[in-house]
């Protein structure tokens, strides 16, 4: 027997690469969570303690990534900043998903009037760029970590609401929902057991990807001085402080930027993986 045609399986090669990447992403995320919970595990310095005598040391020696203008260790500040950056991303996404789910379910199951009200509002919110929405929220609430969080949540919420609604409308017509109705299950258990979980699960996968976006948005707001405030070592805020020193002390702006990128890449890899798995199973 001889080979007639042997097509190279590009996908197979990808699966291997995907596995390596996924392992890397999982490792990074694990470390990030650890750093967020026990930052002390990774560093012996304090993130806010000032020692002008050590100002602007380049990377190396006792300070892995160098020190900033007030002699604070950059590595330590980045480690302690993990909690802020991750928290902003996760909390904003959680808020957006929770709000979006309520609004979306209300629209899908609450009758025409509710549907119109929710969807027209969502239309308007979706018509405005996310950043602009965030800026409006900050105009109202004033700058700060809380407002940045709400601002990001508000800008992401309408998207989630719309997705949940669309999904709930499909799920509501699914035969398994009809089957549950025909069994005589009470309305609330049909919603709670069948419609909600099945509408939500694809959204949760997308929310993973949304968390990456939220982390980026959070650091952008901090960079603009509208989010987390110094001396809190949020990554975007560190970058904002460091940009003065692009020419003289490059390490100030380089490493926080890398931290953001690596984190968002890891979150994206995981999110995509979940999405593939989810969609693969459904197909």
């Amino acid at each position, binding site marked *: 027997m001889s080979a007639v045609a042997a097509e190279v399986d590009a996908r197979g090669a990808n699966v291997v690469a995907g596995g390596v990447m996924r392992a890397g992403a999982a490792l990074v995320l694990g470390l990030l969570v650890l750093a967020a919970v026990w930052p002390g595990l990774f560093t012996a310095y304090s993130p*806010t*303690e*000032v020692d*002008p*005598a050590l*100002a602007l040391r380049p990377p190396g020696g006792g300070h892995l990534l160098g020190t900033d*203008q*007030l*002699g604070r260790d950059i590595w330590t500040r980045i480690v302690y900043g993990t909690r802020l950056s991750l928290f902003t991303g996760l909390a904003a996404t959680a808020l957006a998903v929770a709000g979006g789910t309520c609004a979306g379910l209300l629209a899908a199951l609450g009758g025409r009037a509710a549907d119109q009200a929710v969807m027209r509002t969502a239309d308007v919110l979706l018509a405005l760029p996310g950043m602009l929405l965030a800026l409006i929220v900050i105009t109202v609430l*004033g*700058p*700060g970590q809380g407002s940045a969080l709400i601002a990001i949540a508000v800008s992401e919420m309408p998207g989630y609401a719309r997705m949940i609604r669309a999904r709930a409308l499909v799920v509501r017509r699914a035969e398994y929902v009809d089957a549950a109705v025909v069994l005589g299950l009470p309305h609330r258990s049909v919603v709670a057991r069948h419609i909600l979980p099945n509408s939500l699960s694809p959204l949760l996968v997308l929310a993973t990807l949304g968390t990456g976006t939220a982390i980026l948005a959070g650091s952008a707001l901090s960079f603009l*001085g*509208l989010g987390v*405030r*110094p*001396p809190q070592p949020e990554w975007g805020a560190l970058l904002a*402080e460091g*940009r*003065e*020193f*692009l*020419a*003289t*002390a490059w390490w100030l702006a380089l490493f926080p930027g890398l931290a953001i990128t690596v984190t968002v890449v890891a979150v994206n890899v995981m999110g995509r993986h979940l999405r593939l798995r989810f969609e693969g199973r459904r197909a």
Partner: protein
Amino acid sequence: GGGPPPATSAGAAFSFALNTEPSCLDPHVSIADATALIQRGVVDSLVSQDASGGLHPWLARSWRISKDLKEYTFDLRTDVTFHDGAKLDAAAVKANFDRVVARTTKSQYANVLLGPYRDSVVVDEHTVRVRFTEPFQPFLQAASTAYLGIQSPKGPEGPRCAKVVGSGPFVFGSYARQKSVTLRRNPSYRWGPGAAPVGGGPAHLDTLTFRFLPENATRLGALTSGQVDGIAAVPTSSVAALQADPGVRLVRTPSQGAVYGVYLNSSSGVFKDARLRAAFRAAIDVDLLVRTTHFGVYERAWSILSPTTPYYDKSVENSWKYDPEHAAELLDEAGWTARDAQGYRTKGGARLTVRWPTTQAQESADQRGILAQGIQAAVRKAGFELVRDSVQNGQLFGLVQDGTYDLYDMAWSRADPDILRGFLHSENLPMAGENVARVDDPEVDSWLTGAARTGDEEARRSAYAKAQRWAVDRAVVVPLYVPVQLVAVAKAVEGLTSDPAGFPRFDGVRLPR
């Protein structure tokens, strides 16, 4: 008198990058330094002030001051023409000052400079008398600033705040928001102040462009890559690099006026107690902090006034110092003995918290945010919790008016010690002025009022010295650093000078080709 017109290189264009863009370009309205800097070349003033504080004729050939310091009579030049062709006369000057105080002008600063202004009287075509309701000594110096510069009585056409018509060596050309302002040479200029480098004649430059590049890195890059000929507000972190750059010259002019410092609200909250104010001050190693954050470019400050301001009192230097133990003693003495879990001091269960509201703009300027972080870390060791809320301009002003703050930071350049009146006189409590330490002391009031009402040098010197001393003794302020106007220009640029406030002036600039 005008000298002979010097030879100019044809087509000489000079561009200068600023770090801030004023929201209004009319010096009668705006409070911004940048407005004065840009319009200095466009508007002339009645008098001019030299670097040592001496006052000289400019649009006014001479002046007389009444004994009670309530009336100033100016004898105006007869040969001055505004850029729109209008002639300078007494009515024009009167129109200017009346405009400044008119409510519709919404002046933010020029009206303050006019103080107790009553009215102006046209004595004859070229004689004008400016009258005040109270004796007002600082008027002449105020009249030398661009804020009180004389604009054409016809006024500009088009939107307010966008264009200014004066009689200066430069004509206002065009304005593109967030980008640039361009000035053109006024070839018929003959009435420059005698002391000016050009000797009173027209400027050398054909065009003078101010570009707005708020990002420090961008501004620096624009200079080193030759896209602009000069920049203002060189960040202190780049001074060393620029000094090493053979193509660039750094010009440093110490500012006159109030240094950059933190004022402590002495009328409410914990800082009502003088011991706490002193403890706060003693907890900060100002020397080290300023040296670190400003790389030795700025000098640390000792008093509200900067050392180059007239009547600076040198004796306050070293009269207070960094002394954490003393701070601890003072706090113990005041009853803040306990510490909570975070290590902050408490008294009766209340944490020793002080609030220092700030705006984004304030914080990003001149490393002030970093400096504040240093202070925050330093006083934390002493047991203070220092909270810095970022608020918006309007809110900040509301907080300041209501007095719901403990600390407030600022610097103020003006080449006159009368500035102390703004900071320490009770009539200038935040509703009306910048007395953010909320000093309300009849004795201080009398020193400062007295100094403003007398022409007697010695009396003024001693009154201002007492006021400076008082502020330091009562620790109503922690002076931090003496601001320096740091301007960098390409090596080839010649003839750049600065006015007494430390801002660059361009009428003498020459670009040899």
